């Protein structure tokens, strides 16, 4: 039971991560790979605050984690988008790798060994279900907020910006500030998910925010359906559940170890050929 709850919490947090990444890359058309690093910024901020400033309530720590991710994302997007849209891709990768190096080499972040002994906040037998409720609620809220953003007048503007940015700007729309806002919302949500992660698992390690994690979120979004409101939900659930399901087959370790990578790669290839718009993206090519 404990195991299933942990899996469900993990799925909920990854739904937030994938849905917010989908807002940035699928709807906003902003090329970035660094989404997991904003999850990390939220997780480390929340974790460190809960260790060093115990008088702050847990909710405030998570909110501050989100705020840290928002500030970092505005600085990154604000500086790189001025150069060009493609520059964000390179800058985001550099930012991710650079910050991870920093985390590994600093004393107070726990270095390469990671940050441990984060207070559990909620104790007792109901800890798991309560966390699941909080994380599930947060995931639902994120998905609904993103859906509200991409529908209606704002969504229309986002679509127009993605179609023809020059014409969009020449009509009087401030594309730059819209991009920064979209990026900040997406990254802030990722930071919030990171904060919840830190509280639930009470341990974070820099290794889990590597480029491999970026690839995993991207796979979730692509598989579920980029630019669809519920695609990332399906993608995140699928990608986390499949490896767990395989463990029930009780295959020997030497087959199991490479299995996950093989299945992910296979899934991406199959989808690329048969359903390029993802599971919920309908037939045909993505927009």
């Amino acid at each position, binding site marked *: 039971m404990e195991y299933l709850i942990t899996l469900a919490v993990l799925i909920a947090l990854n739904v937030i991560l994938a849905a917010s990444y989908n807002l940035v890359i699928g709807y906003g058309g902003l090329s970035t790979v660094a989404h997991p690093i904003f999850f990390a910024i939220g997780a480390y901020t929340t974790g460190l605050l809960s260790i060093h400033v115990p008088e702050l309530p847990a909710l405030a720590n998570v909110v501050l984690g989100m705020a840290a991710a928002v500030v970092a994302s505005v600085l990154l997007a604000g500086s790189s988008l001025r150069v060009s849209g493609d520059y964000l891709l390179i800058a985001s990768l550099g930012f991710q790798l650079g910050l991870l190096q920093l985390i590994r080499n600093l004393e107070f972040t726990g270095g390469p060994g990671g940050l441990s002994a984060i207070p559990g906040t909620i104790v007792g037998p109901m800890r798991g279900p309560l966390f699941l409720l909080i994380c599930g609620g947060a995931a639902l809220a994120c998905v609904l907020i993103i859906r509200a*953003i991409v529908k*209606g*007048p*704002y*969504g*229309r*503007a986002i*679509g*127009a910006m*993605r*179609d*023809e940015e*020059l*014409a*969009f*700007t*020449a*009509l*009087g*729309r*401030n*594309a730059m500030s*819209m991009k920064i*806002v979209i990026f900040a*919302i997406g990254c802030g949500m990722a930071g919030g998910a990171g904060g919840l992660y830190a509280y639930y698992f009470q341990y974070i390690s820099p290794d889990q925010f590597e480029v491999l994690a970026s690839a995993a979120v991207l796979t979730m979004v692509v598989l579920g359906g980029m630019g669809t409101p519920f695609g990332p939900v399906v993608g995140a659930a699928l990608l986390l559940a499949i490896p767990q399901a395989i463990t029930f087959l009780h295959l020997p370790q030497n087959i199991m170890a490479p299995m996950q990578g093989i299945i992910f790669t296979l899934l991406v290839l199959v989808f690329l050929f048969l359903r390029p718009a993802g599971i919920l993206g309908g037939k045909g090519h993505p*927009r």
Partner: protein
Amino acid sequence: MTEILRVEGLQKRFGGIVVSDNVHLSIASGEILGLIGPNGAGKTSLFNLISGVLRPDAGSIFLRGQKIDGAPLYKRARMGIARTWQNMLLFRSMSVLDNLMVGPREYVGESIVRLAFGRAGVRATEAAMQERAMGILARMGLEQTAGSLVVDLPYGQQKLIGLARTLMNDGDLLLLDEPMAGVEGAAYETMQRVVRQESEAGRAVCVVEHNVSFIRDLCSRAVFMAQGKILQDGTVEELISSSVLTELYFGV
């Protein structure tokens, strides 16, 4: 006639190519100015400089007497400079109506804060904008296309949608970049009629166009450009009868 746009000593070069060489220009309200000249003369570049896509190396631009040199592209649009594009740049994944709805100078959908906390106001503004968009489409006889994807329309109608989208701006200055290229038949008539109506409503209109009969029918005044310079400024008849220009442009 009040002066809407004044351009003074506009200078712009890309490496060795001079696209704008000491250009002086003035357009008044209600006037339709034709901008003609061979390809590469700097006509579209002049539009890009006026609308703010390009920054000039030297010179100044005044809108209603106010200097706008420092304003970026989107702010100039909000001041009332509306333009179309040679290749239209329509929002291809969107419907005709949605293309127009993004066009007003003030767009309610741009601020998340306003969307979250001022829903009633947003709804009212959206409804008003939709009414205005439908009105513009009706003037062009295109109201029944409102729900279609722009890419599903014939080329001539797409050109009209490009114009309709900029009319949502309701600006004092209209810059039309080759509105007639590839347009014929009913769409041609409509384009001509709407452009004339817009100037009669008091807008200053500047048209880049190779179609000489369109220029002759609509424009009271025309400017001939070549190699970034304005070579002549006068009535259309004067320009067409000028032997130097006919040689340069019409090749006769």
